[in-house]
């Protein structure tokens, strides 16, 4: 458009000059200027087109003989040659400049994309995230589809994406080549400085084979290798960490089992053997008492076993798919009724909001959460004190608060009440296993909620444990 406008302007000026002032030379110069500008702006082809048109117009309208295509003298030939040479030169120069600019722009874009994918690869925490980043880059820049395989010493080559080229990947893995081509598929080895970490297969990435794009591909493969190597390393580190933590857990568990199981077992065994050996010598009330001890300690063992089972379930991982919509208020009521019976020496007060509190959870595990928290409140507060329970919907959450009138928890211990096998110094000698709250926390978190402890409350001491669970959305089952 600009070129056309310039050409029209130049023609108009030339015509005016030629007609009005009879200055054919000036008009020729105006044409040269126009043609040069057009060549510079529009490139070689447009420049030449304008030059030829200009020659024709000049020849026909302006040079002698006017209104005829003819060259009267050699003098007349010069402007024509000048038009075309100027257009050619400026067009070539402009074209080269344009090409350079376009190339630079394309290179900048590719570099930008490479930078972007490198950022995404750095942020990727697992092979799936890497594959996602690769997919975006391969799709936008390489115009190729991809397959990613990871190589772990323990598992061998494992696919992250589709497996159409699993054979090719395996073949490359078995060879010493850095890359293998089969048809339109190119398999590239992913390796860090000290190990092979996987294989990347690119399909229909023919454009990348061009030598000038080779560095780009190499850089990309390098980035993917580094990211994958880092992920695999992280996996190994967290596995090692897991093994270490599970070893620690085993040790604590063993010491806990030996204490928390042996104590009731010792009581049961002593009571039963006493009854067996000295039945005749024991007064009937004593016999009854011993029998009751056996029953109570049996219950205690059962509660402890439940907690160990809860721990095992948490260790094994919970399946969110197994959860269903449960009324937390209903579960709380059922547990309250049980706890009232088990701890008759405490006064349980409750304050429930209207309507159900529907949450997504496992119904039995949810009851265990409430049971553990209520049991704990009763266990660590004096007889004849009150335990108050509050449940209501607050915002998008079901909030259940259990508050006791016990001595409270020192700030230093408050952080640790939800850790396994934590019992504050003041609780030594009581029955607790140090598992109840940690299991409650584990379950609540599995349900997508949270649990916190606040203590002491005001000046009178006491502890409040607040559980918050997301309210189930309509239509959830």
């Amino acid at each position: 458009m600009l070129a056309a406008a310039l050409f029209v302007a130049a023609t108009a000026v030339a015509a005016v000059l030629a007609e009005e002032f009879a200055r054919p030379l000036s008009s020729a110069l105006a044409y040269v200027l126009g043609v040069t500008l057009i060549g510079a702006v529009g490139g070689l082809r447009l420049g030449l087109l304008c030059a030829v048109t200009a020659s024709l117009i000049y020849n026909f309208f302006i040079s002698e003989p006017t209104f005829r295509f003819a060259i009267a003298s050699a003098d007349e030939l010069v402007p024509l040659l000048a038009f075309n040479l100027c257009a050619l030169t400026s067009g070539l120069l402009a074209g080269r400049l344009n090409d350079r600019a376009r190339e630079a722009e394309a290179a900048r874009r590719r570099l930008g994309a490479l930078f972007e994918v490198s950022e995404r690869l750095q942020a990727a925490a697992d092979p799936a995230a890497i594959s996602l980043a690769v997919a975006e880059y391969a799709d936008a820049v390489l115009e190729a589809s991809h397959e990613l395989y990871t190589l772990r010493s323990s598992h061998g080559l494992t696919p992250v994406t589709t497996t159409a080229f699993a054979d090719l990947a395996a073949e490359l893995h078995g060879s010493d080549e850095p890359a293998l081509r089969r048809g339109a598929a190119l398999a590239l080895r992913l390796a860090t400085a000290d190990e092979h970490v996987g294989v990347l297969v690119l399909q229909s990435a023919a454009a990348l084979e061009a030598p000038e794009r080779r560095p780009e591909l190499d850089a990309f493969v390098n980035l993917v290798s580094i990211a994958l190597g880092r992920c695999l390393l992280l996996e190994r580190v967290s596995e090692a960490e897991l093994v270490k933590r599970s070893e620690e857990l085993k040790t604590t568990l063993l010491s806990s089992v030996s204490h928390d199981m042996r104590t009731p077992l010792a009581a049961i065994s002593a009571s039963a053997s006493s009854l067996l050996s000295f039945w005749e010598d024991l007064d009937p009330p004593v016999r009854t008492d011993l029998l009751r001890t056996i029953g109570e300690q049996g219950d205690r063992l059962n509660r402890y076993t439940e907690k160990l089972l809860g721990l095992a379930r948490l260790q094994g991982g919970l399946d969110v798919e197994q959860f269903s919509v449960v009324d937390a208020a209903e579960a709380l009521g059922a547990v309250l009724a049980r706890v009232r019976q088990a701890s008759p020496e405490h006064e349980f007060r409750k304050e429930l909001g209207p309507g159900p509190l529907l949450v997504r959870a496992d119904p039995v595990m949810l009851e265990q959460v409430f049971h553990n928290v209520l049991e704990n409140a009763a266990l660590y507060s004096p007889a004849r004190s009150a335990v108050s329970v509050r449940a209501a919907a607050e915002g998008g959450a079901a909030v259940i608060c259990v508050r006791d009138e016990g001595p409270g928890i020192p700030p230093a211990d408050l952080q640790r009440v939800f850790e396994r096998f934590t019992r504050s110094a003041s609780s030594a000698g009581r029955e607790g296993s140090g598992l109840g709250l940690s299991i409650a926390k584990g379950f609540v978190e599995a349900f997508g909620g949270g649990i916190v402890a606040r203590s002491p409350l005001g000046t009178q001491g006491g502890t409040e444990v607040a559980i918050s669970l997301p309210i189930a959305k309509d239509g959830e089952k």
Partner: protein
Amino acid sequence: MTKSLRVLVVDDEPAIARVLEPVLRARGAEVFLAASAAEAVRVALREPVDIVLLDLGLPDADGKDIITKLRGGGETAVIVISARHQEAEKVAALDEGADDYVNKPFVIDELLARIRAAQRRLPSAAAAASLKTDKLSVDFATRTVRIMGDEVKLSPKEYELLRTLAEHAGQVVTHRRLLLAAWGDPATDPQYLRSYMALLRQKLEDDASEPEILLTEPGVGYRLALG
């Protein structure tokens, strides 16, 4: 009692059998023992029993798989003895035809109560025309429901739910069976069941938030408490 209750205890744990046998005998029952699934089926064929106490974890088979065989033509009630946390297992056993379950470990009173509840449902027992507990009475012929002597008005769905629970008084009734009874379709949104149970509790319980008559069996169903 004209004829003593015949109970088959199926458990591979001898300690359980050693406790249950004398207690059940002391309660006037005739007791048979089996330590494996195969033995249980053999004994049940030879000695038609009224009640089977079935542990699901047997050495030779899953206890669930022999429920149909043990029930015979429905003259036998099967009470499953199962660990907590195995709700899916319990529901599966109930769907297979088991009548009830007891969580392990149990106290003997609880087990005896479940046996009594199962006994009421046996074909040999006359079909009851009404249910009476300490607080609740339901007359099936007139569809009258009273709580502490006062008549309670129930909607048709509420009554259907209560009737189903009352017919199985003392026994668990699964969500599925309740949905089928009141809505005619077990695939009905369980949300409705929850709402109607809440309404029933409002009408029947002293404190609907801590029910004493209509108990929740988490993950399985509901139970109408007998006493």
